[in-house]
């Protein structure tokens, strides 16, 4: 067990290194020469281009560029944004809380919808409510995030005027406004994950409801609600939690379009804008940090899954 964990932790570094090479390589594939983009109106002047290239190390060989960057990263320096001239680390620190807040709220939405729906579906296995829960879940999975976002803005903000259509207010400034600005995007992000949670809750609950201790509890004459919530759900919660941790990882980076639609200044929007501006240090930095969080969350999920629930070790 320990060696398995050790293995997994040891693999984080090579995985992240691979990610860094992958991102770096992908950028080289992209057509817009950052020097030309940065030169803008002066793109016809070879002297300007040469100067920019020299300044940004773009005139060195690719391996050298990579080593220069990764060397700095290993010393904790993520570099400067070419586009806005701010340190990438500052950018990330500004955006991390936003992404975490959005991700956290989306996760709450997902759990609030997914878990009860899964329980209901399992209890009414193959019955009417099972179908309804399934249909809602699948509908959530099948709606493009950005379209749902657009429709919500149209309905809730434009027509009803209940919530601000977009933007983000930090909770430190005004927590109510903050909540108001993130609730719609959180719902958009959370509903797809709710569907996944729902299915896993359902199957975990089915297993739990079949288990001996539930039969015993029932035999003891405990109320059905109590049996379901107290005995079955508690036992089914572990796989749900671990799965949740996994999905949280995808939430961190999967919010690209949702952030775009709602103009939320999180990681997703940062990456897309940086890609379109050819702001390589930002793309590299943000992807690396996202990948790191993703890998760590994955690891946590694994640890939770295996350590806390030894029964599953063999399965």
């Amino acid at each position: 067990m320990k060696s398995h964990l050790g293995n997994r932790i040891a693999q984080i570094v090579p995985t992240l290194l691979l990610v860094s090479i992958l991102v770096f390589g992908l950028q080289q594939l992209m057509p817009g020469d950052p020097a030309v983009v940065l030169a803008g109106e002066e793109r016809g002047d070879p002297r300007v281009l040469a100067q920019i290239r020299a300044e940004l190390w773009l005139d060195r060989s690719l391996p050298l560029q990579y080593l220069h960057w990764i060397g700095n990263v290993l010393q904790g320096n993520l570099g400067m944004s070419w586009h806005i001239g701010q340190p990438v680390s500052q950018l990330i620190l500004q955006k991390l809380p936003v992404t975490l807040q959005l991700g956290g709220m989306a996760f709450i939405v997902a759990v609030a919808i997914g878990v009860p729906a899964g329980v209901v579906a399992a209890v009414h296995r193959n019955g009417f409510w099972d179908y309804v829960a399934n249909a809602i879940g699948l509908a959530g999975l099948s709606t493009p995030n950005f379209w749902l976002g657009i429709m919500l803005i149209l309905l809730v903000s434009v027509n009803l005027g209940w919530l601000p259509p977009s933007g983000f207010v930090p909770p430190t400034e005004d927590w109510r406004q903050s909540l108001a600005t993130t609730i719609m995007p959180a719902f958009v992000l959370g509903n797809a994950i709710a569907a996944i949670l729902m299915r896993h809750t359902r199957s975990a609950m089915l297993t739990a409801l079949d288990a001996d201790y539930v039969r015993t509890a029932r035999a003891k004459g405990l109320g059905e609600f109590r049996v379901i919530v107290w005995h079955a759900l508690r036992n089914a919660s572990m796989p749900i939690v671990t799965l949740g941790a996994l999905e949280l990882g995808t939430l961190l980076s999967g919010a690209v379009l949702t952030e775009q639609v709602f103009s939320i200044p999180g990681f997703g929007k940062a990456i897309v804008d940086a890609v379109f501006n050819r702001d390589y240090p930002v793309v590299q930095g943000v992807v690396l940090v996202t990948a790191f969080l993703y890998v760590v969350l994955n690891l946590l999920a694994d640890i939770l899954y295996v350590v806390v629930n030894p029964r599953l070790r063999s399965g």
Partner: protein
Amino acid sequence: MRRFLLAAACLLTFSTATQAQTLRIALREDPDILDPTLARSYVGRIVFAGLCDKLFDLNEKLEIVPQLATAYEWADAKTLILHLRQGVVFHNGEKFDAAAVKFSLERHLTMPASFRRSEIGTIDQVEIVDSATVRIVLKAATSPLLAQLTDRAGMMYPPKATEAAGKDFGQRPICSGPFQFVERVAQDRIVLERFPGYWDAKAVHFDKVVYRPMPDSTVLTANLRAGSIDLAERVLPTDVATIEADAKLRIVSSPALGYEGITFNLANGDRSKAPIDQSALLRQAFEAALDRKALVDVVFAGKYQPNAQAISPASPYYIPDIPTGPRDLARAKALVRQSGIPTPIAVSMNVPNTPDRAQLAEVIQAMVREAGFELKINLIEFASSLQAAAQGNFETYLIGWSGRADPDGNLYSFMHTGGGQNDAHYSNPVVDDMLDRARQISDVADRRAAYAKMWQAQRADMPLIYLFSPVNIVGHTAKLTGFRAVPDGMIRLQGLALGK
């Protein structure tokens, strides 16, 4: 909303003399680096309008008016004397004087990767006459120089603080404008606060200004209507009706300085071998097949101005004789026949993938099809399109220019042989000659004549078909007073106030 109003009402009653007023401005993009020497973006200039004073400013009629320089005179064609405003201080307390002007202009001229060098590269030397006077010696007579000093190249820095900040200046810009920098969260907001030491403090009626990038027009309009934004720049023409219908909002439209056009690759690499790039007749046919008015009506709700030249109708250098239409399909077909090239003639067009440009391209596609052109739209994202343009990887390119106050800024670098934005590699000695001459003379009538001659040659070659001039459409709350619509589209904060 009601609760908000109530809260606002409470605020008003409790705070009498010192009410903290914030102006919230929506920008269409997130600006780039906030260093006037290194900045490139249009929206960045809007933020600088609150942050950094310039030597000169523009008024609504595009006249050059004093700002940090109170007066100027030409000692001779190559020597400009500036008299500086006294008692001006920078945000950090440093004094604005001749030394600061010399430092600032030299920073614009010599800083590596400066984007101002080409704008004021004609400056040979900046000499301090006394603390309130500088003498600028030029390499050659250059009439557009003053107009350049109304923009980023005319923004002044406090020497000590700027020197100390070096390349990091853009992280905490320090200038002498009515507002000073507080913080920036990329893609979210830029916050400025009132600079108490501003020389024209009585013109400033806000304590705080917040700029918020809002690329999505629906979102922007909704925010404006909900009252969470006080002023929005570059409202889409298609949103004007919605805003006008709202009694709480106002629309201010004024002609802008820019243009939108189709650049033809005349001699930049292999792609310039396409029939349309090799035949001026075909390009003229292409133009004749376009219905500029319909184009503007369909895509921009009829708000923009059909235009067949780089100069905006707002400018004194606009030449009304250059026809913008009407569409002449018969002539287009005749010209195509005359060219002897069999139809359909395949033409590929690079189009940066913003939704309105894509629609514009689709409309053009439908129009020229009737004249025998099979237009293939190649939607690519902006960065790639710039690269393709620079490398000559295009047959035609649908692109616009935000525009400058002096006509030179809309022409020289696009049309002159070897110009920085001459992606077409267009070269015509007459055009070069007239562009050079217009730079050297300052009399408006003489310059107009030179430009008129340039247009004659240009329109025969047709390296670029101009389509329209946009209009600066600003939407703001009805409570806002004192907004001045200057054609450069910058939002001047002096004089703006929020009423009840």
